[in-house]
């Protein structure tokens, strides 16, 4: 139900950060990392436009809650250890 203009603040205020929105649900293709082939160059981590790659001992760990499957990490990976797989077929 839309609140009356008299009951709302001057500008919309949210008490939660936008990270509550699990945007990984938008994904069609998902990156899968072959950790054994990884050379720890961290290029994928630098290029990820949505900060959805974390480094664990220098090796990428994709945060699938937010990864939208753009494929930039796979395209940039010089050792070809990231491949894009259709969602649900991995």
């Amino acid at each position, binding site marked *: 139900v*839309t*609140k*009356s*203009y008299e009951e*709302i*603040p*001057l*500008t*919309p*205020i*949210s*008490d*939660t*950060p*936008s990270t509550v929105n699990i945007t990984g649900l938008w994904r069609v293709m998902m990156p899968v990392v072959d950790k054994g082939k990884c050379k720890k160059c961290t290029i994928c981590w630098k290029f990820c436009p949505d900060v959805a790659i974390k480094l664990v001992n220098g090796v990428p760990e994709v945060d699938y809650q937010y990864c939208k499957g753009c494929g930039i990490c796979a395209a940039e990976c010089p050792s070809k250890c990231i491949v894009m797989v259709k969602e649900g077929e991995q």
Partner: protein
Amino acid sequence: MRMVMTGNYASAYGAKLARAEVIAAYPITPQTSIVEKLAEFVSTGELKAKFIPVESEHSAMAACIAAQTAGARTYTATSSHGLTLMHEVLMWASGARLPIVMTNVSRAMAPPWSVWVDHMDSIAQRDTGWLQFFCQSNQEVLDTIIMAYKVCESAGVMLPAMIIEDAFIMSHTSEPVDVPDQELVDSFLPAYSPDLKIEVGKARGFGSLVKPDQYMEFRYKAMLAMKEAHDRILRVEQEFKHVFGREHGGLLERYRCEDAETVLVTAGSVAATAKDVVDALRANGQRVGLARIRAFRPFPHDEIRSLASKLEGIAVLDRSYTFGAAGAMFTEVKASVYSCQRRPVMKNYIAGLGGRDITPKILERIFEDIQVIAKRGAEDEVEWVDVAGLPRRWR
């Protein structure tokens, strides 16, 4: 204390007296000496403020928005291309309901490249939700900055304001200016303390996404705030007069309009020249007056209507042009007058673009023209004044 200073220094002193806490600005001709002076005030410790040098005007406004959201009183200044670069974030400042005060040294837009006065830059920002004050004197610049903070920070308004001074004619021309005592300004303008601000340890999003079922209510509130600003401007100016002994004419300054038959409506520094012309024509028995648009947003519709209903003719002099339409002040004035029972003849004069002088002679000819057509009825609605190649001679 009475001092001799430029419009730009009047802006800087205004921001200092208002105790701006964060100043973020990028230099541009002819605004530069405003922020130079403020940087000096901050470096000598005369003004306790955080001065943020930024890489663009867009960033200057973004920094002010962030600081104001955190509860600081902010100030910035710009001109022409700097102002238009800010356009996106000007909308953010008003939508986020942040009472930022900014001086715009009004300057023509390029090309042709120009650093001189006209109002195109300011007029182009009329729909951003900012209050807009066109000033006529350096004293008015200083006073209006102080008044604007008080108007804008009041609970019913919470919108930003643009104080407009004309490039070079005001920004770089010295006039005597009364600089009020700090204690007096402090008694008039309390410290800024908004109900809602960023608080450390409390994660919140400001200006977050709303769906179509929630959007209009926020816009409706901003509309009400602009209406409230109209009354608040009048009240704050009366308080200002009580404390400082000066006033500048509310939203629409009326000069010798009481028994006038024809009136010139304009804004900015040319109004001072026009007052002299009115005096000269009055001495010759002509019943003419001047109405100066001091607040363009909110627009003084009621004031224009009550003035217009007694007049035979209205000349509106715009120092800018809205391509494909007419001068923006003309279309606004005309829209106001439409609901009058008895409507005067109206004509728009476009003059003084890119810093071209609007001389007393030109203003006399505009008065002459409007008095003739007020008797005969309107002809060309919009006339460009003093353009080489056109048949009519204005000088």
